[in-house]
């Protein structure tokens, strides 16, 4: 029959057109999946530090890919090379794409030159998670910290990223903060670039 074409079969995934990023799934689907991730990792480790590390590693892989995807799609293949540039990229673009809103705040640490903090009242991943008393300071935000570390590392800004609960006066639930501590070389390079 003339005019009827077969849908193109892409043999190589790199030939497929990139999605626009507008597709959505339900929050509960993601929450279920994330809870399985945490539960699986709980069976593989003996202590909280290991659990946080594994969640961070999972997030790291996500972050590296998110950077590639967003740089190509949103920024036209341009990647930030300055410190403040990459921080605001994480704080607005990455957060907006992954969580639907920009992060609540981005602050520079007062005590150390190399520390920055991204704060969020309630992280999406922590929405349905409750921490039992005996797990103490465990924070599933380690997954998000891993995403941030993945983005920064792949962009050439090695850093140590951790997630913390910061109790706020006047509020019942503590605020979530992602603490980013850049490596020495990043600061030196930043100073050189002026």
């Amino acid at each position, binding site marked *: 029959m003339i005019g009827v074409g077969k*849908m193109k*079969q892409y043999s190589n*995934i790199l030939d497929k057109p990139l*999605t626009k*990023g507008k*597709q*959505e*799934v*339900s*929050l*509960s*689907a*993601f929450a*279920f*999946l*994330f809870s*399985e*991730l945490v*539960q*699986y*990792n709980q069976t*593989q480790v003996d202590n909280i530090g290991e659990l946080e590390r*594994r969640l961070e*590693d*999972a*997030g790291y*892989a*996500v972050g590296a*890919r*998110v950077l590639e*995807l967003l740089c190509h799609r949103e920024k036209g293949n341009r990647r930030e090379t300055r410190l403040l540039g990459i921080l605001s990229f994480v704080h607005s673009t990455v957060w907006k*794409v*992954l*969580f*639907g809103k920009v992060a609540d705040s981005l602050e520079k640490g007062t005590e150390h030159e190399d520390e920055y903090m991204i704060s969020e009242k309630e992280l*999406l991943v922590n929405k349905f998670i409750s921490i039992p008393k005996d797990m103490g300071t465990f924070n599933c935000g380690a997954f998000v910290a891993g995403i941030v570390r993945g983005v920064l590392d792949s962009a050439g800004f090695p850093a140590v990223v951790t997630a913390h609960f910061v109790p706020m006066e006047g509020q019942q639930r503590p605020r979530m903060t992602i603490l980013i501590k850049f490596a020495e070389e990043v600061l030196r390079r930043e100073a050189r670039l002026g």
Partner: protein
Amino acid sequence: MAPVAPRSGDAIFANIERVNAELFTLTYGAIVRQLLTDLEEVEEVNKQLDQMGYNIGIRLVDEFLAKSNVSRCVDFRETTDVIAKVGFKMFLGVTASVTNWDAEGTCCSIVLEDNPLVDFVELPDTCQGLYYCNILSGVIRGALDMVSMKTEVTWLRDVLRGDDVFELQVKLLKQVPEEYPYKDDE
């Protein structure tokens, strides 16, 4: 009060909170990668994904029944229809279709054309035996188990292995009658 009519998958999906599908896709990819590193055997990974899906399914069915207001399904046909039209739409945002019914009405195929789990995914040569979306088969099995239907769910076609759509075969093994858990005379 008149019973509330069942809402269509689109209506429910529009009313619930949603997240970006890419976060979902990348998180699932991270899970599969972790499993492959830990377990190393593709068969083990398949089994673990199925088990994780089962754990999700047994909880997912409660949310599904609560949010979708579907009435009790009369037979297995209706059940799979509801899963494909309402269930998949509600959670993954995609619609599936049901085909290939067998003569007794206990075995059918659910066909998915697009699947948010496999965006950006390519199977390397070392993992050719992997059913990447095996979590979905576990979810369906777990959900149906909680409503007293023992089923067997297998993959017939898989886009990552070269086919053009995803096809899941759902076979009803038996319907377990609901047991009243308390003895009245004790």
